[in-house]
Every structure is written in C-alpha cells, then in structure tokens.
C-alpha cells in the first residue's frame, strides 16, 4: 500500500499534509494515538522544510511518499528546493525549563520526531534534500 502527494511550500498546506497522512494510516487501521504521532512527525519535518529550508516560497514544492508493507511504515519527504537542508536525525533532548525561562518558541520539533519514529535520516539525492522516516506500527 502506498500513496503520494505534492504540496507547495506554504504553511497553509500543513493541514492538507496532515489530512493525507491521517487518511492513509486510518485506512491501514492505525490506532488514534499512533496515527496522531506519525501525523505529528510528518507535520514537523514538512514545517521545517517549508519554513527553514524554503522560507515559505510557495513556488517551491515538496513530495511526500507513504509506503506500508506489513507493519512497516516508510515515509519519504523530498524537498525540491535548491538549498540543501541536512539536520541530524537525532535531536538532543530540549531543556524545557530553560526554554520556559527564556520564553523560547522553537527547538522542540525534531525532538518530537526522533522520539516518535524508529528511524530518522536526512540525505542528499540529485542535489535535493530527502528525509526518510520509518516506524513499525502496532
């Protein structure tokens, strides 16, 4: 089972991405909690690509591919922008007490992604950045 979607780099498209991932996983009989976690992980990576890698340039676009084989879920998010964006797949645990004291808004997204997914990697393919996420469901 697999499905794909292409979106332009506008944060208004995050809802469309979440609806797409939700629909795919609910069709695969995922639990409400697990579906929400995977939706969140994809949302965080896509938001980073849109905001940080592409500066919300709606002329740029991302391709998302979801594949489910048995219980193994693989997700590929390819950024067609020209700037490589290669954060490490493992995010350090954020110091939330310090964040609260500093009134800080960001810095938690990739920590969520790495705690939810079994595998997170960013790599270069054809001069584009690709993020691969995987997780065993169930």
């Amino acid at each position, binding site marked *: 089972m697999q499905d794909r979607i292409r979106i332009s780099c506008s*944060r*208004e498209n*995050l*809802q469309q991405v*979440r609806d797409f991932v939700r629909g795919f996983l609910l069709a695969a009989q995922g639990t*409400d*909690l697990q579906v*929400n*976690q995977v*939706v*969140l992980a994809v*949302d*965080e990576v896509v*938001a980073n690509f*849109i*905001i940080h890698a592409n500066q919300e340039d709606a002329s740029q676009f991302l391709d998302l591919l979801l594949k489910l084989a048995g219980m193994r879920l693989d997700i590929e998010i390819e950024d067609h922008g020209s700037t490589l964006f290669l954060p490490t797949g493992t995010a350090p645990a*954020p110091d*939330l*007490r310090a*964040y*609260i*004291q*500093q*009134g*800080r*808004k*960001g*810095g*938690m*997204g990739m*920590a*969520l992604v790495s*705690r*939810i997914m079994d595998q997170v990697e960013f790599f270069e393919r054809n001069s584009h950045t690709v993020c691969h996420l995987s997780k065993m469901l169930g």
Partner: protein
Amino acid sequence: MGPIMKVTAQPADTTLTLVLDGELDASSAVVLDTELNKPELLKYKKVMIDCQKLSYISSAGLGVFISHLQRLQDSNVKLVFYNMQEKVFNVFEILGLDSLMTIVPTEQEAQTA
C-alpha cells in the same frame, strides 16, 4: 481555506477561559499567540485553557504556551489546561511537558487548581 484554529475568550471575575477549537500548528499558532500576548491577560489570577475541541497540537502550538508561561508566572497568573484529548495530552507527555504544566481532567478541577 478558513482558519483551522478558533480561540474564544470567556472572561469572568478573576479567571479568563480560552476555548480552543481546531488544530494548533505552525500556521494557526499565531492566533493563540496573539490572544496570550494581550496585556489585559495579566489582570487575571488564572487563565484556563479548555482543550475539549483541540484536536491536534504540534511543537509550534506547544511553543506558544512555553513562550508565555514565565511571563504569566512572573505576574502570578496561573495557566491551567483541562478537557484535553488523550492524543493531545500524549504530545505533552512525549516531551515531558505534562510535568511542567498544570493539566487537569475537568473544568471543576481547573477551577480549584
């Protein structure tokens, strides 16, 4: 496309309740940020966040609450969440934010928290 997050403010004597309805993400978090940034918020003793209709939260939504928490605490305004759906609470749990913020099951408990 209409807004995916609606915030309704319900002021009372010493408590302000903010009712959240929708999905809180990097696109909609600004709506909540604007509401929490209002200076008049600091005249209340407590801000209660009704999460019954909050169906999704991402790090951008969590970030809005985190960014205002210290300012509220410094002004002796307590921030209390209630009626939170399990999948939304789970996001707070993944980061350990459930131990740093006051999250209670019901409105009644929020009033006495």
